[in-house]
């Protein structure tokens, strides 16, 4: 058994495609019409054969209040790994991305949290160098 897809629930797939591709820098992998929406996935250009991120439409009535509850408490449900949290923070802030948590030293790692404009908070992390 392998994990090949993980999802974020987005309020608008076209807006999500712009954010996840143009701002975050992911690459579109699959874009297939499926009912009234699309099967839309992106991958990291650093790992094109790796796990796909499914930009899943917010169809179910339970999704919106659940997402709003997480956002109000600042909770990111999805996490990406970056080489340099501070550099990404500066790059993305320059593009107008709203951070609810600026880069913070959490001991063994750096973290920051931003709004994906589609109703989700996303955490980016950078592991600190270990002695080994």
């Amino acid at each position: 058994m392998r994990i090949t897809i993980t999802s974020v629930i987005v309020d608008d797939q076209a807006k999500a495609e712009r954010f996840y591709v143009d701002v975050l820098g992911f690459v579109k992998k699959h874009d297939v019409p499926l009912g009234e929406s699309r099967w839309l996935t992106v991958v990291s250009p650093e790992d094109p054969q790796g796990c796909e991120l499914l930009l899943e439409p917010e169809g179910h009535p339970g999704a919106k209040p659940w997402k709003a509850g997480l956002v109000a408490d600042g909770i990111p449900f999805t996490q990406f790994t970056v080489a340099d949290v501070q550099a990404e923070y500066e790059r993305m802030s320059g593009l107008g991305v709203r951070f609810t948590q600026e880069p913070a030293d959490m001991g063994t790692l750096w973290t920051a949290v931003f709004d994906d404009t589609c109703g989700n908070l996303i955490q980016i992390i950078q592991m600190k160098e270990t002695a080994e």
Partner: protein
Amino acid sequence: MTESPEDENVFRALADPTRRKILDELTERDGQTLFEICARLAMKHQHTASRQSVSQHLDTLAAAGLVTSRRDGRYKFHYLDTTPLRRLTERWRRPETKET
């Protein structure tokens, strides 16, 4: 001197090490989400408190006036307010040190 209920709330709030740690972290950066406060407690201080319990600690700090919470659009941030502490230190000041 009689102790006001407001002062009682401040002493009660400060009597707990987790709440003091929350104030420490808000001193380092003012205006944090509940998530950031929980993450700092868990990852920097190996604190095992649940999110619900941290939320209750914030309520106690808010009742004492030491923390204020503000909504900003869809987000909610928590801020440090040291005004009640100044009121407390005033109480034990010697008369001659009051005039500087």
